[in-house]
């Protein structure tokens, strides 16, 4: 999909801890939506469609898009709320534009509440088998971390190193929630939460807001001279009940990446992709995801980490934003990663040079509410405009 639909502008505010923004979802969504419009001199009435990424169970409101949609400019306009991943929301915007129904679409999301996240992710589980044993997202992370550790006999220190690598990147990202350079030793010293994962290896819940303006080819050229083109989208789901192999083999990520690569005409991922933003609410998942996306052999992601390939200044920077460890926003995490990738492609990171980076891969997933069973994945390919 060459130069048909582009991200022309973004709005984002500094992410904080739970209930620390000092704003409700409507105020935060309004702030970032207005920012995205103002950046390209667009007005509310230029909008044709508004897509909201949020979940009732995370907003404490049934039909919570009612609170966010008008804040993103939906009054008197068409709007929808997709409760899967941020990339599913971008798909909805792209489909609306390619159908000839819209020229300018606002995609927005925000997290502003404090809640008991164990309870909230438990009521995502079924009520017969997994709900009653108290199964929640954090426990599902522990299972995947255990599986990867045992399968490729990875040293627990490698998990601390991947976490450290993300903290170092998050420390220089003004938008990330956590800006503290935790050392590998501090991480190893933090208590186990769900063995083998330690508390500093699992992302705290972050609050913040983010918006993207997506435009048709013609509208994009009118609004900006550095559009970021959406060249490929791949969306998949995975089954809830299954064998452990089916629940842990990340086949859905492989397929989503293949769909997005084929649409973007990417032949060799390792050569063509310059940077990546991957969902990783627990740091080791970055290793698992890199292998499932096809950037290295099974169990070899640790070598790329230890060679510094995926760190700041590396050959293939991954999660320069600090990843899900430094910013783990339930509703807006996906769009946060998209906006970070757009900023990196436009070389807008202070202190980090991403000048000749042309192509970015963004992976989003709804695994923040549970990583074992029923997980959806979305892969988005972005290209800097000429």
């Amino acid at each position, binding site marked *: 999909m060459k130069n048909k639909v582009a991200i022309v502008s973004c709005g984002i505010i500094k992410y904080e801890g739970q209930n620390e923004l000092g704003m409700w979802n409507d105020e935060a969504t309004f702030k970032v939506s207005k920012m995205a419009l103002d950046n390209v001199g667009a007005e509310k009435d230029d909008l044709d469609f508004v897509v909201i990424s949020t979940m009732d169970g995370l907003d404490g409101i049934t039909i919570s898009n009612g609170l966010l949609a008008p804040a993103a400019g939906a009054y008197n306009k068409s709007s929808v709320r997709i409760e899967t991943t941020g990339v599913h929301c971008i798909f909805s915007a792209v489909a609306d534009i390619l159908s000839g129904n819209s020229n300018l679409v606002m995609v927005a999301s925000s997290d502003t509440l404090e809640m008991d996240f164990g309870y909230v992710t438990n009521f995502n589980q079924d009520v017969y088998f997994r709900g009653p044993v108290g199964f929640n997202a954090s426990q599902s992370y*522990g299972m995947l971390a*255990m599986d990867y550790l*045992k399968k490729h006999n990875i040293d627990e220190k490698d998990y601390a190193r991947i976490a450290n690598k993300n903290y170092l990147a998050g420390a220089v990202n003004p938008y990330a929630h956590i800006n503290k350079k935790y050392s590998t030793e501090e991480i190893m010293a933090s208590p186990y939460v769900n063995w083998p994962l330690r508390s500093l290896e699992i992302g705290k819940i972050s609050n913040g807001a983010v918006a993207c303006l997506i435009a048709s080819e013609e509208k994009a050229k009118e609004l900006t001279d550095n559009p970021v083109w959406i060249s490929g989208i791949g969306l998949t789901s995975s089954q809830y009940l299954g064998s452990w192999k089916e629940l842990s083999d990340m086949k859905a990520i492989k397929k989503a990446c293949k769909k997005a690569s084929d649409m973007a005409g990417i032949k060799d991922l390792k050569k063509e992709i310059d940077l990546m933003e991957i969902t990783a609410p627990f740091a080791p998942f970055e290793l698992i995801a890199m292998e499932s996306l096809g950037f290295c052999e099974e169990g070899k992601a640790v070598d790329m980490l230890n060679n510094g390939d995926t760190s700041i200044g590396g050959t293939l920077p991954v999660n320069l934003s600090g990843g899900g460890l430094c910013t783990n926003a339930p509703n807006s995490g996906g769009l946060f990663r998209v906006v970070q990738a757009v900023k990196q492609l436009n070389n807008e990171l202070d202190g980090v040079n991403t000048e000749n980076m042309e192509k970015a891969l963004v992976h989003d997933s709804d695994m923040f509410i549970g990583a074992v069973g029923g997980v959806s994945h979305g892969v988005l390919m972005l290209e800097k405009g000429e």
Partner: protein
Amino acid sequence: MSNNVIKKEWRFNFDFSVASGETYGRFFKGLNDKKIIGNICNNRTFYPPKPFCDKTLKPPDAWLECDGAGIVEAFTICCEKSNGVKFSKTDKKPDVPYVLGVIKIKDSEHCIIHFISGFETKDVSEIADKIEIGMKVKPVWATKREGEILDIEYFEPVI
């Protein structure tokens, strides 16, 4: 955060009543009688039983029953109490740290997630060493059973 702000709180509070259908209904009745019911669906075996084949959407073909012995395929050791939805009247979750295991019962093509106990130690790293992927486990039945998944108190290693 400016000081002209105000902190507020509200609750999400709903009552639910859901039907189990025949397939799950048979499974939970089986638990009440200390039996693990399974079924064959599109010639694949499932414990717990599958209500329909997710590929053909056709109903299951035959019922199965076994004593619930199985093997551990994965696990994590939970060091924080899981404050989840109250499904049964009393809180039947074990004390922290406890093992939450992924168990494959007999030749089932599905796994089940349940507690694994029976390790004399409460030290997390020691427990981690005692659990082998593929080790055999069997269910330990609660004395008072109500036809729910927690009628199995936990799985214990078969020595």
